[in-house]
């Protein structure tokens, strides 16, 4: 948790190995990722990490279904039939059954974030990083997305690292860290 500009997203990017620290070291899943090259870090992310971004970051030229199957294809699982079955089941779970062939531009913000949730969970990651996942959504849609996120997280037993500036949302997490002036401290 932290105010806008406190460095929450930067910390998350560092923890996930998307960025490299100038000093210090980062250990993720028993590996010192700060000492790894691009390729090694990408491998760890591909195998064990999931992401949900504030801006959804779907591929505009791919349908909802293709966006969800993408992480599986990128992992080398090219069995289209089984990928589609898995992705359809997740899209149904997030309430998007029947919208599989829609492009991101044909979906609302909330629907796009639901596709992003399905994409994040489709590979059953060990850790899921969610960076202000409701930041671009209205309150009602945001509430729905959060309920989905926590439900899917519980179901899959994923470690969820959630970046937010919403104190109410933070209270639902087992552990809260607050970033202030570049310092990270455990919340009372």
């Amino acid at each position, binding site marked *: 948790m932290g105010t806008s500009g406190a460095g929450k997203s930067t910390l998350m990017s560092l923890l996930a190995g*998307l960025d490299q620290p100038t000093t210090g070291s980062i250990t993720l899943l028993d590996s010192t990722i700060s000492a790894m090259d*691009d390729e090694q870090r*990408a*491998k760890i992310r591909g195998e064990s990490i999931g992401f949900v971004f504030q801006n959804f*970051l779907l*591929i505009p030229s791919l349908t909802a279904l293709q966006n969800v199957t993408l*992480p599986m294809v*990128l*992992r080398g699982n090219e069995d289209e039939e089984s990928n589609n079955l898995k992705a359809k089941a997740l899209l149904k779970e997030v309430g998007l059954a029947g919208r599989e062939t829609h492009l991101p531009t044909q979906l609302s913000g909330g629907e796009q974030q639901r596709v992003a949730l399905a994409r994040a969970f489709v590979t059953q990651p060990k850790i899921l990083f969610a960076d202000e996942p409701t930041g671009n959504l209205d309150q009602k849609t945001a509430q729905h997305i959060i309920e989905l996120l926590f439900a899917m997280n519980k179901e899959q037993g994923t470690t969820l690292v959630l970046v937010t500036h919403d104190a109410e949302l933070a209270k639902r997490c087992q552990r809260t860290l607050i970033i202030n002036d570049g310092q990270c401290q455990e919340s009372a």
Partner: protein
Amino acid sequence: MSLFSFLGTLEIGLIYGLVAIGVYLTFRILDFPDLTVDGSFTLGAAVTATLIVMGVNVFLATLIGTVAAACAGLVTAWLNLRFDILHLLASILTMTALYTINLRVMGKPNVALIMEPTILTPFEGIFGLPDMYMRVIFVGICAVVGALLVAWFLRTQYGLAMRAVGSNKRMAQANGIVVKEKVYAGLALSNGLVGLAGALFAQTNGFADSTMGIGTIVVGLAAVIIGQSLFASRSMYVIVLSCIVGSVLYRLAVSMALNADFLGFSASDLNLITAVLVALALIFPKLRNEWKAKRAARDEI
């Protein structure tokens, strides 16, 4: 327009179809504006023509010309990825350097291939076809096979990763894609295709010239834009093949403009016609959307 002139236009349009596919890969797939193609088109032609004159097998010469152009793409990617030089500037630097390199490769401003064997030689007189038809069929097959291979590639795991990189680097990174590797591969593939087009152009037209690549990027972009405005499709095969159709239509439009006596254009007006056609192709979709929005608003009222 005479049949001879029409077939000549078709031939050039098909060859530039490969350029359009290369430009599509960088501009649309990788979101990397790459002007290297102005130099790599000539490099493909220069290397191939020089090797043919030296007596190297025409197929091997074409392959080496293509690989040399692909290397030019790698240099641009390296400047951008290793040293954070803006992609546009990195490509301009490579393009500028290639002008000198092309002169060095040829040892003079141009190389003639009039009496030399070319990639077309083995097919001369095949099935009793007159050469002017055979040439169009040959370059047409090259362009279509190239397009199908690229479309297939973009649907593979590697190709999807490349599309993800162009769509959003952050998301691609998050999904375990090594972004830099895909950019290197994309630029090499793009410039390789453009180099192949240059090699085919030199052999079908009988020369390689140090200035033949000027404006290649604009022609490639024009073809991509025309093709995509005419064929709005989600299919990768349709999208890539539309680059070739766009290229042929562009060439036909230019040829008709130059041949229409009442317009009074001469061959030296080619760049102006190109610029106007590209501007129209860019302006038209925007105006069409504005008209649609206005009509929808009027209908609501």
